[in-house]
């Protein structure tokens, strides 16, 4: 059998470029100083749901307001996670597990206070009609929730009518659509046309599988997202006043 040294044949750029700092060391630099908040943030980073609840109980027992803990501890812990993900220090499954823990923590705080927290904004997500591949949508939804947005999840194989009704009812700041197949992504165009006909104008972020920038550029509300992680970045940009044209300028890279 022929074995050839890889020198000059390939480069493992991921090994070459790897950060020297471990995820735990990087996270430790970002945790809040307050001991009560720090314990919660650490539990979020570890994705340990039981420890999150334990930390919240301790903070409430120490006099912290349950609803304030969402912003002061849970979201701070989640931001550590998403920042490290953006920097390429941790991987997506860590974000998913942390998001699970954060959502459980939010439910706990809501139950304790009897009130609902304010979110950064509402976003409707769906998978194109005729398409049942929803792992991309699940990732988008988790990343948006992790970034503090309220997500209305219409699920997979979502009829165009249902998308239009949801936009009318929920009045979201952004709509997302994911699709795996070229044959189903055409539903996005129909969603776009129906929104425009109805006088509804909002960024319609589309991505996944065979979806590409050329296609998304053919309808007026469309903004192409190459990666799931683009979704919260688009939402943040909208909060700062970005228009569809601005979003296209920023996220259409090809």
């Amino acid at each position: 059998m022929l074995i050839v040294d890889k020198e000059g044949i390939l480069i493992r750029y991921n090994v070459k470029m790897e950060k020297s700092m471990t995820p735990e060391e990087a996270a430790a630099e970002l945790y809040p100083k307050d001991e009560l908040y720090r314990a919660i943030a650490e539990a979020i980073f570890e994705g340990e749901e039981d420890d999150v609840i334990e930390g919240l109980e301790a903070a409430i027992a120490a006099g912290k307001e349950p609803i304030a803990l969402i912003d002061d501890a849970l979201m701070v812990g989640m931001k550590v996670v998403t920042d490290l993900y953006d920097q390429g220090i941790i991987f997506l499954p860590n974000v998913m597990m942390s998001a699970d823990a954060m959502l459980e923590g939010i439910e706990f705080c809501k139950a304790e206070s009897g009130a609902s927290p304010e979110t950064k904004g509402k976003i409707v997500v769906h998978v194109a009609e005729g398409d049942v591949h929803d792992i991309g949508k699940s990732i988008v939804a988790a990343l948006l929730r992790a970034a503090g947005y309220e997500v209305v999840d219409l699920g997979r194989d979502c009829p165009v009518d249902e998308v239009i009704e949801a936009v009318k009812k929920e009045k979201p700041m952004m709509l997302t659509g994911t699709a795996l197949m070229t044959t189903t992504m055409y539903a996005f165009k129909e969603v776009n046309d129906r929104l425009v006909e109805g006088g509804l104008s909002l960024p319609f972020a589309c991505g996944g599988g065979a979806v590409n920038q050329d296609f998304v550029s053919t309808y007026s509300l469309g903004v192409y997202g190459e990666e799931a992680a683009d979704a919260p970045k688009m939402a943040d940009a909208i909060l700062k006043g970005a228009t569809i044209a601005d979003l296209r300028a920023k996220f259409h890279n090809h």
Partner: protein
Amino acid sequence: MAINRFTTMAYSEADEMVFGRAKKPVKAGLDLEIGAGYTTAEVNYAPRPEAGETKEKLVNEYQRITKDIMARMVQVGFPSVVLETEHVQQMTNHPEWGAAVAHAQKTIMEEYHEEYGIKCALRHTPGDVRETKEFLALRGDKMAVVMESFEQVAESGADLLSIESMGGKEVFDYAVLRNDVPGMLYAIGCLGTMDMDYLWQEIAKVAQQKGVTAAGDTDCAQANTAMFIAGGLLDKNLAHTLAIIARTLAAPRSLAAYEAGAIGPGKDCGYENIIVKAISGMPMSFEGKTSTCAHSDVMGNLIMQCCDLWSNESVEYHGEFGGTTVQCWSESLNYDCALMNTALKSGNEKILRDLLMASDRFRDPQSYILAYDNAYKVGQAIVKDGNDIYLRAKNAATECCNILNTSTGLEMTKFELGALAKATAELEALTAESETFMSDCMAKYKAEVPVFKPENYAL
């Protein structure tokens, strides 16, 4: 059809495996023999989206595609070709649509065969439409639709029957996003195999009744999902060590088709097919550098090492400078096949195989494991407990970890090594008892995955 588990390897050693030759060649279609001493291109394509509006438009589109490919084959002088039509959902949900397409394509292929003598075969791959908006619905009315589709395409000209089945995907999607290796094992190795057993016995029955070939499946829904999420070297969505564990779990799962009556050639996007070929001796289709029109991978040369059919995965039908996409890609595939066939004819096949393998061996943990020598070792681990679907999947993943943990020449990142260490420990901690594992997982995932319906697996 009965289930006959593999408990031995088809090849006595890894070095015996080469491209273009399988222990059990398959005759199919119009004078084609697959794995009988030569490789053949397998061309894949997708209609333009607007073609799906009506049956007539769709049939016309596939006629254009088929004519384009066959014309290019004879223009450049290639001796054989396989066409694979992966159904758009309309073609499976309305079986008469799929049948009309198969008939139209086969008519054109017969004309070319008659006029030029080109050896060819038509594979049809109905979509796995066994699901509702919310849940997988693997048994019942949707299964009947899929089987009706198989029957109709088989009657109308399809020579090779395949599917990319979805069993286990609801649990896998949950597990893979949480670094949950036991969950991946349960999803692919156990649930996936159980559905394959059920589905492929029925497909093999149809193939036997209609006189066509039950070809094979791929774990596209799970192992390829892991590979795509893992992405390139700089992506941070899944450790590549976990992606290759998912791939090795897929080997015993895809093997189940051949235990239920399929005879090959396996489906192109099953990168696990190298392990399946080592165990079954059946011919396999692969895709790599010539499927970049559909997706990227990190083993474009290596995966060609032991192919019998060489595929481009899928390309949307439209114009390019060099002709239509199907013409361009079918030509590229066939030049690769011409090179492999030259190597076979001149006795240089092992040299070319090794050059292909060596050029990607250290590119990634995925390519390292799928190098034919390591893939063979994973196969041996599978057949050791071939009769126990849990243990053989666990063995595959464990052997994958062992090979990576003792690798030489492969550089891995701290992330990849960390994920590997965690997976190794989790696999070591698993029970040796199938029943215990199955019942523990059933309770866990029923509680954690709302869309998991055990009745899909007769559980």
